[in-house]
C-alpha cells in the first residue's frame, strides 16, 4: 500500500540543522566594571572614614544588645525561674529563639556551599556577608541553650570532658547530638569564612602598605598569612575551598535535621513526626534568605553596590525564598493531612489545637507570613520593587519565629493529659533577652562591614567576562592555538611535566 503522503512530502520531518538558541548570560557585575573598580569599591568601605550613620547604628545596636546582657545578668543572679517557661511548657522562648537563630544561619551556608557546588555564580557577591550572618546568628543561637541549662557555670558538662562525677555524656540523646552539630557548624562556618577571606585580606594589606598605614597593613597582613596570589597556592586553595563546600553541604543539612530530632525523637504529639528533618531544613533556608534580603538591601543602597548586587541577584534570592516558603507551606498541609490520616487522636487534637486552640493567633500569623507572603514573589513587579521586597523579607523573619513558637509551645502546652495542660506566657526577662540578641547580631555585623572586606573581591573578579582567558580577542603575541581545546587540559599538563623531566 503506497502512501500518497510519502511522495508529496519533500521536506524531511526532521530539521536538517538546529541552531542553538543563544541565551543571554546573566550580568553578574553591572556596567562592565573592571578589576580595579571592584577592588576600589570594596576596599573603600574599609579604608574610608567611619560614616556618621555607622556610629549611630552602632550606638543603637549596643543599646539593644545591653537588653540581653541585662536579661542574662538577672537570670544568672536569680535563677532560670525568671524566664516564663514552667511545667508543662519547659522549652519556652529560649528554645524557640535558639531554633530561630540557628535557622537564619543556614542561608549563609547554603549560599556559600551548596550554590558553590551547583556553580551558581551569582553567589559571589552575597556569600561573604551571608557567611558573616551565619556566624553571628550561631553566636546568638548559642546564648539560649547555654543559659537554659540553668547553672551556666556547668554548661561545659555538655562537652565530653572528664569531670569530678566521672560520668560521661549520654550519646543516646538527640540533645547531645545537637551539641556536636551546632559546635561543628559554628567552627566550620568560621573556618570557611576565614579561608574565603585570605586573598581579600592580602589585597587590603597591600593597599594599606602602599598608603603607608603600617599598623593596619601589619594587622591585615598577619591574618592574610603572607598570601601572594601565587597560582601554585591558588591551585591548593581552590581545591580546599571546594572540599569545604562539599563537606559544609551535608553539614548544613545535618545540623537542622539534628535540631529537628530534638523534637521528632520525643513522643509529644505534634513533634513525633518523620516530616520534621526536611521541613526544618526548608524552613531554615527560607528564614535565612529572608534575613539575607533584610540585611543586603539596605547595604546595597547605602554603599551603592547596585553593580555588584544586581536585580538578577535579588530575583534569585526572591525565587529561593518563594520555593522554600512553598515547601514549608506544603509541610504545614502535610502535617495536618497525616494527623487526620494517621488516626491518632492525640496527634489529631494537637493540630486542631494549633489552628483553633488558645494559640490560634500565633498559628495564623505563621501561615500568613510564611505561606502567603512569599507568594508575592511570583510577580516580577514585586521583585523589582526593592522596598517591597525588604518589607516582605521582614514578614518572613517574623513568620519563622512564630513557626518555632507554634511547634514548641502549642505541643507542650496541651499534650496527653488535660489535667496537666497549661498556657505559656513569656516574662519581661524573656522578652529582654530575645530582643537584645538583635542588638548582639547588629553589633557584630556592623563591625564586620566596617573592618572586613564586605564582598569576596577575588571571586567577584573571577566571574567577570574579562576574567575568562579565552573570551578576549587575540592580541597576537603568545597565541599558541590552545584556545580550541578548552580550559581543562590535564593531558597537556602531564606532557609539560614529562618534558621537564627529560630535560633534567
Amino acid at each position, binding site marked *: 500500500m503506497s502512501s500518497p503522503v510519502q511522495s508529496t512530502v519533500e521536506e524531511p520531518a526532521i530539521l536538517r540543522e538546529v541552531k542553538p538558541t543563544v541565551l543571554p548570560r546573566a550580568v553578574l557585575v553591572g556596567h562592565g566594571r573592571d578589576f580595579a573598580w571592584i577592588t576600589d569599591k570594596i576596599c573603600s568601605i574599609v579604608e574610608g572614614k567611619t560614616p556618621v550613620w555607622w556610629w549611630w547604628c552602632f550606638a543603637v545596636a549596643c543599646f539593644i544588645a545591653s537588653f540581653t546582657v541585662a536579661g542574662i545578668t538577672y537570670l544568672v543572679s536569680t535563677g532560670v525561674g525568671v524566664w516564663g517557661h514552667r511545667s508543662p511548657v519547659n522549652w519556652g522562648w529560649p528554645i524557640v529563639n535558639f531554633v530561630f537563630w540557628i535557622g537564619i544561619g543556614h542561608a549563609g551556608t547554603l549560599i556559600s556551599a551548596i550554590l558553590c557546588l551547583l556553580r551558581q555564580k551569582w553567589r559571589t557577591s552575597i556569600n561573604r556577608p551571608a557567611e558573616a550572618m551565619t556566624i553571628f546568628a550561631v553566636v546568638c543561637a548559642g546564648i539560649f541553650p547555654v543559659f537554659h541549662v540553668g547553672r551556666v557555670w556547668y554548661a561545659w558538662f555538655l562537652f565530653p570532658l572528664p569531670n569530678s562525677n566521672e560520668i560521661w555524656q549520654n550519646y543516646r540523646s538527640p540533645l547531645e547530638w545537637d551539641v556536636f552539630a551546632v559546635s561543628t557548624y559554628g567552627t566550620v562556618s568560621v573556618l570557611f569564612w576565614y579561608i574565603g577571606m585570605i586573598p581579600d585580606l592580602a589585597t587590603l594589606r597591600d593597599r594599606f602598605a602602599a598608603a603607608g598605614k603600617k599598623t593596619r597593613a601589619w594587622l591585615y597582613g598577619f591574618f592574610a598569612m603572607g*598570601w601572594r596570589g601565587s597560582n601554585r597556592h591558588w591551585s591548593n586553595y581552590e581545591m580546599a575551598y571546594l572540599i569545604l563546600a562539599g563537606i559544609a553541604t551535608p553539614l548544613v543539612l545535618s545540623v537542622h535535621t539534628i535540631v529537628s530530632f530534638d523534637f521528632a525523637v520525643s513522643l509529644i504529639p505534634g513533634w513525633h513526626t518523620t516530616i520534621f528533618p526536611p521541613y526544618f531544613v526548608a524552613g531554615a533556608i527560607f528564614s535565612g534568605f529572608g534575613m539575607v534580603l533584610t540585611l543586603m538591601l539596605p547595604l546595597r543602597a547605602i554603599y551603592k553596590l547596585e553593580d555588584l548586587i544586581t536585580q538578577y541577584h535579588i530575583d534569585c534570592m526572591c525565587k529561593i525564598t518563594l520555593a522554600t516558603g512553598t515547601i514549608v507551606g506544603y509541610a504545614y498541609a502535610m502535617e495536618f493531612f497525616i494527623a487526620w490520616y494517621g488516626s491518632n487522636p492525640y496527634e489529631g487534637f494537637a493540630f486542631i489545637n494549633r489552628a483553633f486552640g488558645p494559640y490560634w493567633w500565633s498559628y495564623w500569623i505563621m501561615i500568613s507570613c510564611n505561606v502567603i507572603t512569599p507568594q508575592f514573589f511570583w510577580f516580577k513587579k514585586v521583585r523589582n520593587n526593592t522596598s517591597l521586597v525588604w518589607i516582605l523579607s521582614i514578614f518572613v523573619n517574623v513568620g519563622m519565629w512564630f513557626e518555632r513558637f507554634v511547634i514548641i509551645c502549642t505541643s507542650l502546652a496541651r499534650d496527653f493529659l488535660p489535667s496537666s495542660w497549661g498556657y505559656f506566657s513569656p516574662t519581661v526577662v524573656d522578652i529582654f533577652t530575645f530582643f537584645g540578641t538583635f542588638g548582639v547580631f547588629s553589633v557584630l555585623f556592623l563591625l564586620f562591614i566596617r573592618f572586613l572586606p564586605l564582598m569576596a573581591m577575588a571571586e567577584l573578579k573571577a566571574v567577570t567576562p574579562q576574567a575568562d*582567558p579565552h573570551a*578576549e580577542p587575540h592580541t597576537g603575541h603568545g597565541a599558541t592555538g590552545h584556545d580550541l581545546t578548552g580550559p581543562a587540559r590535564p593531558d597537556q599538563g602531564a606532557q609539560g611535566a614529562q618534558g621537564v623531566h627529560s630535560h633534567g
Partner: protein
Amino acid sequence: MAEPAYGLIATFRTPGEVMHAAEQVRDAGYRKWDVISPFPIHGMDGAMGLNRSRVPRISLAGGITGFCTGMSMIFYMDAFDYKLTVGGKPFFSPMFAFPVSYELTILFTAFATIIGMFVLNGLPMHYHPVLNYDQMRRGTDDLFFIVIEAADTRYNAANTRALLEKIGGSEIAELEA
C-alpha cells in the same frame, strides 16, 4: 651588592596574556617559576603544567580519623569506661553513635583540609622576595605576573629575560633575594 637575585618578574595585563605566556614558560622547561594573579584563572593549572592538588588526600585522612574518633569515643565513654543505663537502650550501637561521628567526620575533615592547604602552600610565610616588588600590590588588585626563580637550573639572566620579553611580558625586573 654581591647578593644574587631571587629571579625575574614580568608584568602582564590580562588573564589571556598571562595564560598564553605561562604555556610557553612551561614548554621551555622551567620548573621553579610561578604565576601571580589576583584571582584563580580558570585553566591556569594546565597552562603551568601543575599536577592535581594533593589536598583531598589530607582531607580524606582527616575524615576517616574523625569518624573513628567519634565511634570509639562513644564506645569508650558509654559502653566501656562508665556503663550508663538509660531507658533500657543498648550501651553502644553504631546507630545512635552515628550523628556525633558524622559531625566529627566533618569537623576533622575541615581542619585537615585547611591545615593541609596551608602546609602544601608553605603558608604562613610573611616574608617573600615577591612581596618586596614595588608593583606587587597590583598582583592582588588587577595585574598578572610571571616570576622565574634564579634557582631554576635553566635560569640564565639574559636568556630568561629574552624569553619573558618574547612571550609578551612588560616591565621585566630583577627581584632581590
